């Protein structure tokens, strides 16, 4: 049993019914990173969806910009226990990007510039649940927060919302990503507090 430090509260926070179990409210937007921040310019940026049979679908930045975008206001929950309410984003729904993709896959492995990966069921990317986001709070997404574009899947812990996203590999079998292969939960539902394997 840990001893309690009298008067220590940590960052200002309030237990909140709006928050999933074990989460604390963050006022700022913490920057988490597992490596050096990739600097990807939009002229070099490319987004690729590849299917289980090797079919590839590519978008340049220009092409992404020409797709219909949505404004999203959502709460986000990081597995390191901070949550942020009412964050505002703009991006292209995965429903739009995957519309013409032919696949029998059930799983997706999301890939990022810099080598990061994360996995999730394909159905969690569909039906208005996921976006490739490129604006945050009315500004271009900064490299620190995953710019030029990041995945946004706010109903799962935020490590699933891969920064610097560059593609999605559609798979018949589930393949664990960067954190999922190092102890973190395969699915990561914050409301069921699925932080670690076995939760």
């Amino acid at each position, binding site marked *: 049993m840990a001893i*309690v430090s009298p008067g220590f509260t940590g960052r200002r926070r309030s237990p909140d019914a709006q928050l999933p179990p074990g989460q604390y409210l963050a006022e700022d937007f913490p920057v988490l990173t597992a490596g050096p921040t990739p600097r990807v310019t939009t002229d070099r940026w490319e987004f690729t969806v590849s299917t289980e049979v090797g079919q590839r679908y590519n978008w340049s930045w220009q092409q992404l910009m020409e797709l219909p975008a949505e404004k999203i206001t959502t709460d986000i929950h990081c597995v390191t226990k901070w949550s942020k309410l009412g964050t505002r984003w703009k991006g292209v729904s995965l429903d739009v990007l995957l519309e013409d993709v032919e696949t029998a896959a059930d799983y997706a492995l999301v890939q990022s510039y810099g080598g990061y990966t994360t996995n999730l069921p394909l159905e969690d990317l569909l039906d208005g649940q996921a976006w490739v986001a490129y604006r945050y709070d009315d500004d271009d997404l900064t490299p620190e927060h995953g710019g030029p574009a990041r995945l946004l899947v706010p109903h799962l812990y935020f490590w699933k919302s891969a920064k610097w996203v560059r593609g999605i590999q559609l798979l018949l079998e589930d393949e664990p990503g960067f954190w999922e292969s190092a102890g973190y939960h395969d699915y990561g539902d914050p409301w069921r507090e699925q932080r670690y394997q076995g939760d």
Partner: protein
Amino acid sequence: MARTAVSGRLTWRVAELAETADLTASARRLVFDVPGWPGHLPGQHVDLRLTAEDGYSVQRSYSISSAPDGDRIELAVQRVADGEVSPYLCDVLAAGDQIELRGPVGGWFVWRPADQAPVTLVAGGSGIAPLMAMIRTRAAEGSRVPFRLVYSVRTPDDVYFADELRHRAREDAGLDVKLVYTRRTPEGSPEPPGRLGVATINTYAWPAEFTPNCFVCGPTGFVETVSDVLVALGHDPRRIRTERFG
């Protein structure tokens, strides 16, 4: 002589704050009593854990700045304005209060008194802490290993252990201390303020031919710069040990 725990897994210990005092306007020294402390080598650090009423807990690492002294250890804590831990340690924690810590840890960024090679220490800001432990251990052990300290600070008000360093520079035979001021120099100083560069390190650190052990501690950018300079001056990278604190 320092004893160092080498066997057994590390567990948290309860430590009690014995005394505390300002080091500068923005840093404090905290002296803890840690019953059963196994001793440490200069350069090692501790992990410190704070737990709130509701179970929320955070952990930070701090270098030990004291020489081995029974169950006592000293930490030097820089107050980070928007920090989560350091304002609590500097402004709230009072003598008699308990916290948890574990250590000592780290077996690489350490100076072993048996090693007779000359030593260059380069500190940036609060990076002086583990190097101070080396300087103090050298004195406590009566070591004659030649030490040179190059210590970069913003202004004369930001020097940790200022009186002790002044005293030791006079009294500890074989210890040279050079202070470098990046923003403001002491009154009457002939040198303008400036960042630590090749010329200063070339002048005040041991030359590469002496194959000194170099210990560099400070913010990440500072450590990067100093290591590059040392390598450029011909030092073997394997003899340059660094501790970045982010």
